[in-house]
């Protein structure tokens, strides 16, 4: 019931600022079912409610307070009972300069599936792992933007652990493991006992020549794929190592195509306790939209990601879910009164393994308040070693899900 505490805080803030406050939200009835895996500890189906609430209050002196959070309450699968704050911050705006303080989520990716530079927030991996839900990061930020360029610095005074759904069908650990310690490791290789640790990011943005560019330096922890260690007991420890990351994001129009690229170089702190290969991840994508009669349109998306600098294939697979993968996506929008949309995507490992993740989803409005959506996912990632690595642990976790949303 820990989620009730932030929920209470959220409501406290909301109701105390009710005057002139804008607010909105969504309540969603969800159902999720997996192909039966014949393992007792995992739940193959579940249903429950998802809620997202958002409110914002603007004062006359250009100060803004914003709160946003989401939660789930599930029957059968109690691991899905949680609430996370995405935003709870105060911002002062001086025109070109903004200062803010509080919990905040950021989206630093231009891509559909591969996001090596979208690293600020911890994730809730009890969702689609290629576009996982995000958890608010305590941040003190100062940013400046004038005309087409800007820069800023964000400081992160505390560490936020991702939600890793142990014992769930979406767990990245073997199904028999129902818990594991999640530890942050400092630059000396010592375990950080409390979650107070200063990290930060320095960035520069530019919009020019029909494109956008973001360049940054991040000093913090790598939460993309923890390093797993089997400890005496036996128990599993998932370790988030200290990292310095240089990142470059580019999106650029080239004719009627949109080209997107993210380049990330990760350098890990050197110490005797934990070692990890410094490496570079490059993702590149291309988008093209086709327009049909009757106002319908189809967007074709092609993305690829490669990992460079690993010692060998096993090392690469321990560093990132996607070592040499491609995505082919098709998004068809009917542009009708029901806003119907179909999205199909397939992610395939182009290396030696046979990993394939295919999904198809459909969305349509039922009215101004109601929306219906459903999806099918097929995951084929056979285990090649003694233990599952990367999304091998999701092998045959085929699933179907349905959502009925009410917006308010």
């Amino acid at each position, binding site marked *: 019931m820990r989620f009730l505490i932030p929920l209470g805080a959220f409501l406290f803030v909301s109701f105390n600022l009710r005057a002139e406050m804008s607010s909105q939200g969504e309540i969603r009835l969800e159902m999720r079912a997996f192909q039966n895996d014949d393992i007792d500890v995992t739940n193959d189906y579940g249903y429950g409610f998802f809620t997202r609430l958002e409110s914002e209050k603007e004062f006359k002196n250009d100060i803004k307070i914003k709160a946003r959070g989401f939660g789930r309450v599930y029957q059968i699968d109690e691991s899905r009972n949680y609430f996370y704050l995405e935003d709870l911050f105060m911002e002062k705006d001086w025109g070109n300069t903004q200062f803010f303080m509080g919990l905040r989520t950021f989206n630093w990716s231009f891509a559909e599936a591969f996001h090596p530079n979208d690293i600020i927030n911890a994730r809730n991996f009890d969702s689609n792992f290629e576009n996982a839900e995000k958890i608010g990061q305590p941040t003190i930020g100062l940013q400046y933007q004038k*005309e087409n360029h800007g820069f800023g610095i964000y400081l992160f005074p505390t560490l936020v652990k991702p939600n890793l759904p142990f014992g769930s069908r979406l767990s990245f650990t073997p199904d028999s493991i129902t818990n594991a310690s999640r530890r942050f490791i400092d630059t000396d290789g010592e375990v950080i006992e409390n979650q107070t640790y200063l990290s930060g990011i320095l960035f520069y943005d530019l919009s020019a020549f029909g494109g956008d560019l973001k360049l940054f330096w991040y000093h913090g922890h790598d939460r993309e794929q923890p390093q797993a260690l089997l400890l005496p007991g036996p128990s599993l420890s998932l370790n988030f190592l200290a990292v310095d990351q240089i990142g470059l994001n580019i999106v650029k129009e080239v004719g009627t195509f949109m080209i997107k690229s993210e380049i990330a170089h990760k350098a890990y702190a050197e110490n005797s306790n934990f070692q990890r290969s410094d490496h570079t991840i490059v993702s590149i994508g291309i988008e093209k939209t086709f327009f049909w009669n009757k106002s319908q349109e189809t967007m074709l998306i092609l993305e690829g990601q490669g990992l460079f600098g690993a010692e060998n294939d096993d090392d690469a697979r321990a560093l990132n879910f996607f070592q040499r993968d491609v995505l082919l996506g098709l998004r068809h929008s009917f542009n009708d009164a029901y806003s119907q949309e179909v999205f199909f995507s397939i992610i395939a490992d182009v290396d030696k393994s046979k990993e394939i993740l295919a999904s198809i989803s459909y969305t349509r409005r039922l009215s101004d308040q109601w929306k219906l959506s459903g999806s099918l996912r097929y995951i084929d990632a056979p285990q090649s070693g003694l233990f599952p690595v990367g999304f091998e642990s999701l092998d045959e976790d085929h699933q179907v899900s349905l959502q009925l949303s009410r917006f308010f």
Partner: protein
Amino acid sequence: MKLNWMLLMVSFSITAPVSGAQEGKESNKGYELMKEADRVNSNFLGQSNQMQMDISDAYGNTISRKMKSIVMEKKKGDKSLIEFESPADVRGTKMLTWVKQTGSDDQWLYLPAMKRVKRINSKSKTGSFMGSQFSYEDLGNEEIEKYKYSYIKEATLDGRKVHVIDRFPLDKNSGYSKQRVFLDIEYQGPLKIDYFDKKQELLKISTFSDYKRVKKWWTYHKIEMKNVQTKKTSSLTWTEKEFEVKLKESDFNSKKLEG
């Protein structure tokens, strides 16, 4: 810079040189009339709008979307920001446009559910704007230098005197081969535009109505866009329209989209 014909503005620069695309006396007359309309509709500085977009299909199903927008007149190209207020599933969606006098405009869409800022390809102009019959091209900038003109005649439309002018997009990415503009002589604004597709067939008709004088400018308060090929219609109705609104340059920073 000038008042918007559509959602944003007709923002051909009066300082721009006369295009080499203008040929012949009647072409020049069309160009000069459009240039004069541009001059008359200039100097609004800042514009603030409250609008409703109604989107109907051929079967009579209609959805309504409410939005607000601000437009800032700039010498180097106007800037505009549109934000959807309802229905709830699209609330908070924003579109930021930086018009350029030459070359492609910069345009970004903010999707609040994913907190994602997405750059829109300015060459994909024919795409539907939020499922409506208005394309990004219809709603975007219409600099006079981006067209070639041919004056047709003076005529009467719905009892009002108009100049009929054909304009031909020079941009090869335009979804149209020709637009026939019925320019109201008194309002110095359009009463109707016929849009012809690349096959030279009539595709859409927009009608501009409910003209009112706001400060020194005549301005319409409703546009209806009908796709004659699909029978779908969309309309934009202004519930509020203000000119000479004081706006800050920083209101149009892409960083502000993320809220």
